[in-house]
């Protein structure tokens, strides 16, 4: 039973990580139907920025929670700026283009950003300090779950709730939903579609940066390639849950995390990813729009 519980909690952490990145994918996809391949790289840049800021601060004698907060804030700002710029350069000029063009542009952007960080920084793994302080009340449970893991799970929960409320009730959120449903109709009702799309990228990228700081703290090392691997998994999670749906992204992340965790625990980690992808295929065969996705009838 203990073993089961451990795997369950491990899967929960892993699932929350996927969910946090998947949120960005799902938001962008919901609005402009684009697989934003560069999203994983934004997450990586967030982690790098946090590392740089945190190191500079610690070298200047700062310690404790203020480093975490400052580094996270800068990382969020920078990731949002990168997301915004990437959209302006690589996707905005392509609004009228054939459907596959933005996807290729996204793959190109992803390769570009990876190599940009590789050249400007390093190809080696860098140690990432654990910025999250050890919570004293978690000590007795450290066998099951560490403080970092708890923070990851809690953050994902909080972020999801805030995001759902934001999209449901605020003006920007409503404009986003309108744009997602019908872009030209939204335009007619006075929604500035370009700004809505920019906002989506900014929010999605900011979430990726939060993910970057937390996940890098959990893993303890970063390099320029982390975004790609995490990105593919997060994207799988988003599709699994029904792309375009925010609760779907979280559910998809958790299902994927648990599948991998239990597959490793009870079968073998050799085929961990094979299980993940087989699950995806199976779910899509029976629910072609994902777990929580609405299967809309095709308009004729």
């Amino acid at each position, binding site marked *: 039973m203990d073993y089961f519980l451990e795997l369950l909690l491990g899967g929960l952490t892993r699932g929350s990580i996927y969910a946090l990145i998947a949120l960005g994918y799902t938001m962008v996809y919901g609005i402009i139907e684009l697989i934003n391949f560069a999203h994983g790289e934004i997450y990586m*840049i967030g982690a790098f920025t946090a590392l740089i800021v945190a190191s500079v601060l610690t070298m200047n004698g700062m310690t404790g929670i203020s480093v975490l907060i400052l580094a996270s804030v800068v990382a969020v700002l920078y990731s949002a700026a990168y997301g915004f710029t990437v959209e302006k350069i690589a996707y905005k000029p*392509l609004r009228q283009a054939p459907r596959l063009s933005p996807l*290729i542009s996204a793959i*190109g*952007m992803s390769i570009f950003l990876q190599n940009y960080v590789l050249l*400007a*920084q390093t190809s080696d793994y860098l140690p990432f300090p654990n910025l999250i302080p050890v919570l004293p009340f978690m000590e007795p449970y450290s066998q099951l779950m560490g403080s970092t893991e708890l923070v990851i799970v809690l953050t994902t929960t909080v972020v999801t709730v805030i995001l759902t409320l934001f999209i449901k009730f605020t003006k920007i959120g409503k404009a986003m939903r309108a744009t997602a449903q019908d872009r030209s109709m939204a335009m007619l009702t006075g929604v500035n579609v370009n700004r809505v799309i920019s906002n989506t990228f900014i929010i999605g990228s900011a979430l990726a940066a939060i993910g970057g700081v937390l996940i890098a703290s959990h893993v303890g090392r970063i390099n320029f390639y982390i975004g790609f691997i995490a990105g593919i998994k997060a994207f799988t999670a988003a599709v699994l849950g029904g792309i375009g749906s925010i609760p779907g992204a979280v559910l998809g992340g958790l299902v994927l995390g648990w599948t991998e965790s239990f597959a490793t625990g009870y079968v073998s980690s050799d085929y961990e*990813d094979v299980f993940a992808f087989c699950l995806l295929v199976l779910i*899509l065969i029976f629910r072609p729009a994902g777990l929580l996705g609405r299967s809309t009838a095709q308009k004729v």
Partner: protein
Amino acid sequence: MKALSEFKKALIISLWFMLLTFPIMVIRVNTIEKVVEWRWRNMAFIGIGSFLLSFVWRYLLGRKEKGRKLAEAGSVEARPFSRRLLDEPRIYRPALAAVTLFAVAFPFLFSSYQTNIMTTALMYVMLGLGLNIVVGLAGLLDLGYVAFYAVGAYSYALLNHHFGLGFWAILPVGALLGVLFGILLGFPVLRLRGDYLAIVTLGFGEIIRLILENWNEFSFGPSGIANIPRPGLFGIQMSLNEATIYLYFLMIALCLFTIFVVNRLQDSRIGRAWIALREDEVACQAMGIDKTKTKLTAFALGATWAGMVGVIFAAKTTFINPASFTFLESAMILSIVVLGGMGSIIGVILGAFILILTPEYLRAFSNYRMLLFGTTMVLMMVFRPQGIVTNVRRIYKFRARGRDGEPSQA
């Protein structure tokens, strides 16, 4: 006034980029020695560079916009220049002769290294043409095309290892296995559309690679299979140089064969069905086209070429391991198709040559190679999303003067 506002815009953009690239470009922290390296020079480069590039960027965007408006107004001839050039027999006939001559003379004019990379480029031409059937014609986004390539490569390597079968015996086997796997993938994804399809095919590609990596008893695992024989020719012993030339001509022949078949397919009943399916699935079904069959044939026929090239790949490198069949490879082949121009055979061929040969010749810039590759992909899509060669829809015109009043093709 306009110049001033342009200048102001460029200034803002350059400031923005200087700020944006600040942490990554300027600061480098050595966490081990606890030293911060400030590289202010990079910031200056970024500032000046983005200032100048922003002018170029806006000029090009403006030109593109103008071009589109003109096209909408109908003042630009629908057939692009490259097409008109190609349709002119006085130009393409002598050029074709020259090219044929060049292609034949190529391995004797240049070193075996040049021949070798040309062979690689030709392999990607075949791969691109195969994927073009799935993506360009049938409009099914396949991100796991490399799986079929792997199937072909491993079928040669394994059958040769266990049963000693030769290259020529396995070339059709590789193609057949490609078909088989194409159908195997096709069945579960028939109901999926668009990006769901994309992610499932991506998953399929990964599954194949992971199985090859983990199932040692079957595939020899990550250490791969070595000493795969090169293709033979009636048992003649060939030196390395001769073998390279032989492989080159083999690839030329296979490419011509592929071009021929794909071209015929495009004009066939099934080719029309693919295009109809791409344009509008519902209307296509309403026309009485069997969607299942059409999709499956697209997957199967697309995979055939990958299977064949896989066999050649194994024969050419003489060593294969699963690391050669990653998602990046699929992305590369997809880029060839999209960069060249979806659905256009010439475009795909050009795309393959550009994407495969440029990095090879840019070895001197090896560090910047991938950076440039990514940049090119983005720029290409921004300024020419239809690809290098625009695929022109075939137009059928009724000509009253045609023989027996039959409509003839234009």
